[in-house]
């Protein structure tokens, strides 16, 4: 969203300018005040990565959403506004740790994330699947069927596939480590190529 353009009478020109430095300084001040006042329900930032630009979002409880570029960051922010709260600001501070750990992960220098997570966007069985995914170790893979069994419902293989496909916290909750029993790669929210890159990264490290 861009600021609206004004047709200003020439005589008002001295008050027309709002330079980008001032607006970004004011924005940072607003984000800090909002955080202090407990009004920053969702903070977000983007992060460049080898698999494209990532959107990282966090509530005061922890990281709540990691989104790939192919999901459309604006659309994801709209969903967060609808499902969590519209009190959303670009406020990188809350995501400093997440961004640093993801950078380290992509550099092959981190095997575990030490981040507080907020699983608010996953409910019921999907949530128990995510909890199982957190147990799959770096560099390993598990089949959809094995995850279904571990989540307590051996026949719910398709439901595990759905839980992975709708994982609100990909990378951090490693749904990329779930593959088909026949050796096939299976789907991925960030696209099959991204999944291949991540599995290769972990196999090499």
């Amino acid at each position: 969203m861009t600021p609206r353009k004004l047709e200003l009478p020439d005589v008002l020109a001295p008050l027309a300018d709002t330079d980008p430095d001032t607006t970004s300084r004011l924005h940072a001040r607003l984000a800090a005040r909002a955080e202090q006042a407990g009004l920053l329900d969702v903070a977000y930032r983007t992060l460049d990565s080898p698999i494209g630009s990532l959107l990282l979002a966090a509530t005061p409880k922890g990281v709540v959403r990691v989104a790939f570029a192919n999901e459309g960051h604006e659309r994801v922010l709209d969903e967060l506004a609808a499902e969590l709260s519209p009190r959303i600001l670009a406020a990188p501070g809350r995501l400093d740790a997440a961004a640093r750990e993801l950078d380290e992960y992509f550099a092959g220098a981190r095997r575990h994330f030490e981040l507080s997570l907020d699983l608010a966007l996953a409910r019921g069985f999907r949530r128990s699947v995510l909890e199982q995914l957190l147990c799959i170790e770096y560099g390993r893979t598990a089949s959809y069927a094995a995850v279904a069994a571990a989540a307590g419902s051996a026949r719910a293989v398709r439901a595990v596939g759905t839980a992975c496909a709708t994982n609100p916290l990909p990378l951090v909750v490693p749904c990329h480590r779930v593959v088909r029993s026949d050796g096939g790669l299976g789907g991925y929210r960030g696209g099959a190529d991204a999944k291949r890159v991540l599995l290769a990264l972990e196999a090499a490290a």
Partner: protein
Amino acid sequence: MRGRAPFEEIVAEHGPSVLRVCRAVLPPADAEDAWAETFLAALKAYPRLDPGSNVLAWLVTIARRKAIDIRRSQARGAIPVASVPERATSAEPAEARDLRAALDDLPPRQREAVAYHYLAGLAYKEVAVLTGGSADAARRAAADGIASLRKIFLDPTPSRGEKA
């Protein structure tokens, strides 16, 4: 139908308009305080804002109140001007300071009509909701205000004596 937009979009779209309104009535440091207070109050109330509201008009309403609060608290503070340290980090250009002083001298209706219509971008109908009166009256007040400012700043005859 799309629900409430993330507040970030509100700040990006309307932040500059609200800043212009604040700068029209307050010196730079106070204008920035008023801007921050406005958006903080707006963020707090945002989940309860009626969908379909005119967001800019809502923000300007809040900014107007915050600017009045800041002016009042300074009036109550009654600190001799000479002892107030320079707090503005970004120096206000002389042209902006002169224009603000001239706006300050306008009748309040004219000043507000100029700020809300031209500097914020509100329609006259929305200006009228804020200042009272009709949309036509707001249009006339804005036109009269601009005419007065033109007389002061764009009149080629050096009537104010500062030019040779």
